[in-house]
């Protein structure tokens, strides 16, 4: 995409630090998507803050020529919450991994989601611990053999989209590193969402978990497996949109459109106040092992924590203009000693 009519180019968002992911890592692609998107966005560079935890993905802030903090493992949502509440003018991005965000950081993540703090959370899900060299993560499939699960993992994985919906998230989406236009679309929607926006990004770790997303990225396989969710449109997929989704008492189901007729295909509406159907869609796959929905699952407005907090502060200030420390300390009564 061209950026001639904006102030910025991608280079303006590249920090001097050498990018040090493994050659071929999906993180490069996401970095490029984000940098290009921010250049297009044309928002003052100093207004962006990237906060991350620890992991390969979490090195991200170092490569962004914006404000940033490469914090500690799992705590980025909490730290970012502090940044966002302290200064509502900033756009605060959280970069996290499946280990960082769902294992050690799971609690901060679900609390940020329910509070609806104004954060944009990008969870790079490579279904593995990359930085520590290949242990299974909370999104690794059952039976996965890694160094810490030599006989196969016995940890049933999370479905990050389901978890986010269960945690009262107002914006939940999924995209794929390799699908750059879609990634950009999701970034834009997240940016425009007021509140916590959560995007799960399927990211290939070609060193420790190569081809985990092959079904969604392989030339041969991807058409049959990417279920794009477009608001207001019936949910269909396949090379010729021959497949579709119905939603009913047994959950969401994959059907041949021809078998049920287009009218029975569910029309996607991420803005439903009730997250129930979004949740049903999230259950279509429990990982990228078959047809998998990609796109925005849920996108609703709810007042943000920050806005509610600031309204209380403003109201208090109005009621109590010129509050002084002397008054404060005298409120329960004082006496004079002459």
């Amino acid at each position, binding site marked *: 995409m061209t950026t001639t009519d904006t102030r910025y180019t991608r280079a303006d968002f590249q920090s001097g630090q050498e990018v040090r992911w493994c050659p071929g890592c999906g993180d490069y692609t996401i970095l490029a998507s984000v940098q290009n998107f921010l250049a297009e966005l044309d928002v003052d560079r100093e207004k962006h803050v990237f906060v991350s935890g620890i992991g390969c993905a979490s090195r991200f802030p170092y490569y962004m020529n914006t404000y940033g903090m490469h914090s500690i493992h799992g705590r980025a949502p909490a730290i970012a919450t502090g940044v966002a509440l*302290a200064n509502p003018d900033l756009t605060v991005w959280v970069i996290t991994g499946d280990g960082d965000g769902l294992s050690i950081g799971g609690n901060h993540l679900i609390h940020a989601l329910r509070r609806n703090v104004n954060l944009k959370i990008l969870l790079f899900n490579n279904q593995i611990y990359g930085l520590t060299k290949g242990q299974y993560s909370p999104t690794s499939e059952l039976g996965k053999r890694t160094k810490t699960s030599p006989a196969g993992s016995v940890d049933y994985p999370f479905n990050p989209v389901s978890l986010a919906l269960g945690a009262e998230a107002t914006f939940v989406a999924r995209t794929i590193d390799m699908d750059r236009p879609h990634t950009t679309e999701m970034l834009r929607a997240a940016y425009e969402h007021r509140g916590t926006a959560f995007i799960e990004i399927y990211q290939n770790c070609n060193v420790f978990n190569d081809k985990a997303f092959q079904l969604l990225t392989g030339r041969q396989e991807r058409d049959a497996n990417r279920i794009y969710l477009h608001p207001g449109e019936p949910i269909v997929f396949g090379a010729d949109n021959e497949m579709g989704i119905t939603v009913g008492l047994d959950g969401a189901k994959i059907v041949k459109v021809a078998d049920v007729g287009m009218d029975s295909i569910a029309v996607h509406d991420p803005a439903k106040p009730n997250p129930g159907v979004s949740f049903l869609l999230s259950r279509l796959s429990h990982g990228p092992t078959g047809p998998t929905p990609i796109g925005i699952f849920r996108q609703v407005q709810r007042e943000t924590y920050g806005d509610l907090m600031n309204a209380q502060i403003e109201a208090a200030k109005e009621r109590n203009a010129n509050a002084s420390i002397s008054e404060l300390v*005298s409120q*329960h009564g004082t006496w004079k000693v002459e």
Partner: protein
Amino acid sequence: MQEETLSPPEPPEQLDRVVIRFAGDSGDGMQLAGTRFTETSAAFGNDLATFPSFPAEIRAPQGTLAGVSSFQVHIADWDILTHGDQADVLVAMNPAALKANLREVVPGGLILANEDAFDDRNLEKAGYEKSPLSDGSLSGYHVLTAPMEKLTKIAVKDSGVTGRAVLRSKNFFALGLISWMFNRPTEPILDWVKKKFGEDNPVAKANLEAFRAGFNFGNTTEEFHHTFEVAPAKLPPGEYANITGNQALAWGLVAAARAAGLSLFLGSYPITPATSILEEIARLKHFDVKTFQAEDEIAGVGVALGAAFAGHLAVTTTSGPGVSLKGETLSLALMTELPLVLVDVQRAGPSTGLPTKVEQSDLMMALHGRHGEAPLPVLAPASPSDAFEVAREAARIAIKYMTPVILLSDGYLANGAEPWRIPDFDNLPDFDISFATEPNGPDGEFLPYMRNEETMARPWAIPGTPGLEHRVGGLEKEALTGNVSYDPDNHEFMTEQRAAKIAGIANDIPEAEAEGPDEAKLLVVSWGSTFGAVRAGVNNATVAGYPTAHLHLRYLNPLPRNLGEVLDSYQQILIPELNRGQLAAVLRAAYLVPTVSLSKVQGAPFMANEITKKIIDLIEDAS
């Protein structure tokens, strides 16, 4: 108005000090009675110190020892230092209260018992076989009894309060009786009731009537003919307010933010005995403060760190177990060199320990409770009112030196109150703080780790500032640029710089000054909330002919720059601590001085006489 008639008939006996303890079931309103008595004494001009003590349970079974709640207040006509080692007067609302508190009453002290509560059921619950009021076991005390419940019932019959609620006013009966006995001004109490409940409220009426009934009972009952008076103290002139340690911390932090021209951001998770700091600050939104009740302690310090990065005066408050959880994030704050104040209101540990009781056993954790070489400033207030100033000081150091600072208060300071001479806020110095706005490097570059020559602090460049975009993080930083660096020499250099920055704060804090007679050869060194008891104990020893000096440390890291010299100029060093010798270990390692520890780990503060006794023993042994 009727109040004016409430005055005792004969001139009261003058006392210079008295310690009164209100004790009853936790439902009996003893904290309220004690607080009201305190406030009226404060208004009267006494110096005072208080010591509330709560049961650990929310509502322990009524009438049991576990359910006893007490409030001790020490009032005097001079500048007192402690809440009193033992009580001169014990108000016992039931047998359990008597039993639980008797060992805290001076021999020959006055016991004022609510005789109605000494029935078989209550006696049994408290574990008495016979009533101590009649079995002679209290012969070493002066015992007075009053049928407080019966008289309260009668007094409130027209108030509109009915049923079991009637008895709720019996604390006001007791308060009235004690107020009569100690010749307290009644207006502050009566006014407070009216203001609190509304003049026409039945509860207000009941309380007022019960109070008057108690007052009049003293007035008219022969047994109570004798009254006492403690004259106003000759405190330095000024305006005074009563203040607890947690209030002082809350207000001091708000004042610090004002002084710095910053918004205050408190990230916290409730935990006894720190919670009321959060609760107090949450009420102060009109001071442009943000409070955030986090999902846990780690998030509490995490949000605070984020707010610090974004330019707020960031604070996190907690108690011991919470500090154990915050170490990793504190270490990040230290590496990113961002200002942050961590308040630890210490309680008795380890683990959950005795959550409502005092201890000073987190000092070593404050100094060392993080992986790696991670030195931080540590400060501790000496008294509730000192906590205001120490809160400001912690914030000043955090901002000036771009470092997390640990403030060690404790459960004794948290709830204890004392009169505080309100400072002249207009003349308190503002903090000199400036965010970076311009590049500081040679080629118009911004160098986030270029240090101020004097303070060694790095610049505070907050997100939103154009041109200063930079990244911080937990990996070792390259000097100047702050880029990630794996260079061995840089790591050593930065480790030394971080240490030197903290050590250098010693030049920005007062020198240590021992107080006491010149001929003293024994120095007592204390820190934190033991100040009052230790100072009183030292004074008493000196008066008793054992000249002793006292040095109280407000700064635990760095230590005052002349401390080694001061310690060297005494022959004996005694260090009383509510732990097993933590400060002693620090001073021994730093200065290789022999020390004697006086340890107390009972979830209770020192008594002055414990200090005095130890001093005398030591001096006797040495001679």
